[in-house]
């Protein structure tokens, strides 16, 4: 029942919001649904193993982790949206709120579905629900962005569907495409079709994650979409896509195919980190900078899966840190865009002076997203690097450290310039309303906490998720 509610409640609220109540009611609907959803997810933590609809929907450590990221990030984004929509009064917030809630429903479906075709349906729905929001400004640039986003993600996800069908035809035992049965009878899966299926799923869900060289849509889409939408994409949508890939990985490991998976995962991960480092150096736009940073972190996640062992645990921890820190930075940059009306770094100086809260959040976001201590990402990156060295991938650890350093320098240079630099002409102090600050502030507090202290239940769930991926807890 609870599982159905988590998916259907946002659908119902989204429909209600579309029927056109007063903006105040609509906003209450958005934040209320987000809060209820988070409360529902909190309940799930107390009831592991809950299942419904004949095993089609179920809670498992992997899905629960992703669902929690989505829900917490969505709550932060929803409160932020109140402040954002107030400033955009001329454009109907109706479609905006409905699409956001539709995304929440679709992402919950992805996280809870244990039927792989259902996972696909949810994933396609997440893509589509955010498309109208990318086109929010209705100008030529956003038109180009939404076109690239739609075409590339649709083709990618189409190939993932082919991979899903391949998986169904590889199966001889158990209920078709039910995750538990795929893992239980993994030994009987037809190896040729299974491998083909993995490649298609990697390309398909990899496109949605934005792994290089399948990332072409990402900088344009994140650059043109409203910042809170880009934050939701970089934090929640990519986590859902990662979950799709993780499902495939857990089936492959159970079938004893880890050796087949490793080379493509390593290659695509390294290429992603190299591409993002290359484009972060010399980047001129704040939002595109964050988009390439997202390519980097997706690369790290895939590398962690390839390393295996404690690396899988590191991947899960990194997933949480990335999801929340990306939300934080995009919302902070969103404020900057509101105050300066541009995301061109050259035109933005002295944020700390003009908007002190935003400036601090921006700097905190910079250190959180580049994996500096004391933030959570420092711990997860250290875990992954340690797993690489112990697993005999010393060369990989060296490459990663060099690229991480390059990326840190590139990002720090732009963001510190923007925060501290002297403005050409002093602007009046910006009006930082509470709803524009509260969401990113809470996200910052969580990523800071994750760097200092990991609650025992969270640690346990991450450990179990790592075991499902064929790895182990530290």
């Amino acid at each position, binding site marked *: 029942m609870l599982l159905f509610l988590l998916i259907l409640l946002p659908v119902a609220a989204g429909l209600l919001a579309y029927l056109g109540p007063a903006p105040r009611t609509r906003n209450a609907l958005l934040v209320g649904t987000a809060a209820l959803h988070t409360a529902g997810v909190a309940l799930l933590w107390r009831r592991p193993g809950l299942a419904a609809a004949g095993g089609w929907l179920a809670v498992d450590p992997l899905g629960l982790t992703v669902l929690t990221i989505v829900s917490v990030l969505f709550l932060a984004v929803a409160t932020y949206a109140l402040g954002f929509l107030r400033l955009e009064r001329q454009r109907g917030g109706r479609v905006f709120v409905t699409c956001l809630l539709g995304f929440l429903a679709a992402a919950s479906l992805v996280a809870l579905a244990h039927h792989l*075709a259902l996972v696909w349906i949810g994933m396609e729905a997440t893509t*589509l629900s955010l498309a109208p929001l990318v086109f929010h400004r209705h100008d030529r640039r956003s*038109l180009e962005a*939404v076109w*690239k986003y739609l075409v590339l993600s649709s083709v990618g996800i189409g190939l993932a569907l082919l991979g899903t069908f391949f998986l169904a035809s590889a199966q001889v035992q158990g209920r*078709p495409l039910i995750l538990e049965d795929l893992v239980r009878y993994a030994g009987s899966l037809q190896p040729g079709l299974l491998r083909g299926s993995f490649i298609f799923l990697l390309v398909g869900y990899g496109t949605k994650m934005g792994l290089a060289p399948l990332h072409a849509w990402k900088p344009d889409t994140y650059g043109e979409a409203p910042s809170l939408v880009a934050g939701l994409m970089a934090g929640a949508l990519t986590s859902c896509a990662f979950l799709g890939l993780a499902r495939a990985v857990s089936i492959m490991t159970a079938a004893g195919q880890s050796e087949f998976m490793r080379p493509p995962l390593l290659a695509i991960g390294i290429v992603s980190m190299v591409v993002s480092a290359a484009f972060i150096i010399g980047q001129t736009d704040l939002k595109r900078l964050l988009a390439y940073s997202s390519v980097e972190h997706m690369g790290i996640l895939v590398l962690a899966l390839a390393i295996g062992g404690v690396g899988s645990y590191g991947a899960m921890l990194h997933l949480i840190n990335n999801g929340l820190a990306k939300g934080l930075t995009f919302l902070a940059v969103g404020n900057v865009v509101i105050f300066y009306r541009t995301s061109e770094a050259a035109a933005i100086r002295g944020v700390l002076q003009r908007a002190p809260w935003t400036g601090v959040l921006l700097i905190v976001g910079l250190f959180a997203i580049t994996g500096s201590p004391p933030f959570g990402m420092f711990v997860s990156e250290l875990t992954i690097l340690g797993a690489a060295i112990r697993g005999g991938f010393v060369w990989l650890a060296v490459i990663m450290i060099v690229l991480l350093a390059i990326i840190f320098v590139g990002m720090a240079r732009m963001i510190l310039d923007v925060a501290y630099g002297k403005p050409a002409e002093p602007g009046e102090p910006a009006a930082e309303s509470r709803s524009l600050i509260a969401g990113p502030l809470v996200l910052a507090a969580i990523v800071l906490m994750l760097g200092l202290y990991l609650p025992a239940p969270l640690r346990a769930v991450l450990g179990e998720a790592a075991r499902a991926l064929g790895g182990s807890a530290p």
Partner: protein
Amino acid sequence: MQPLHDVILLLVVLTNFWVLGTTRLSATIRATAVQGALLAALPIALYPGFSPHILGLAAGTFAVKAVLLPYLLSRAIREAAVRREIEPLIGFAASMLLGAVAVALAFSVAPRLPLPDLPTRVLVPVSLSTVVIGLLVLTTRSKALTQVVGYLILENGIYVFGLSQVERVPFLVEIGVLLDIFVGVFIMGIVVFHINRDFDSLDSTRLTELRD
């Protein structure tokens, strides 16, 4: 006399070449409508016996792929001044040739995929070649509308492959997939409409403002 399902599969391949060879945008839309109708008939031919599951799938496919989507696409270009694909990145003859290569490759690769209990041996190669031709149309044509058609062909190829699993995948899932594709093309249609209005052209090659 070939069995009916093989004839339908052959016709699906022919509609692919229809799209590859034609210059008129309206003809590509008509070709997808015909292909949609063929795909709707395919499950009935493959699994005779008129079970509600198969009939529902056929009806849903017909409604979405043969009627709704072609209608939406022709509405999207109703006001477009350009009705022809003028300069594809790869010429028409060359792309027909590439299509033929794709079909030949698909037929030579398919026997290596050991699919259990398939009703026909042509299904997998037709599916794979349709996927490749869809990708070909998507990447080599410059009109936004033709690219949507390419995406549809790609999805149709995947659908044909899915038919080999139809008894194992529940009806609900098929409807969900159809719905997703419908909404996807619906949104793409709206974007095509805007591209047409804002750029006075259906050329997606004009979308070049965003770059690093």
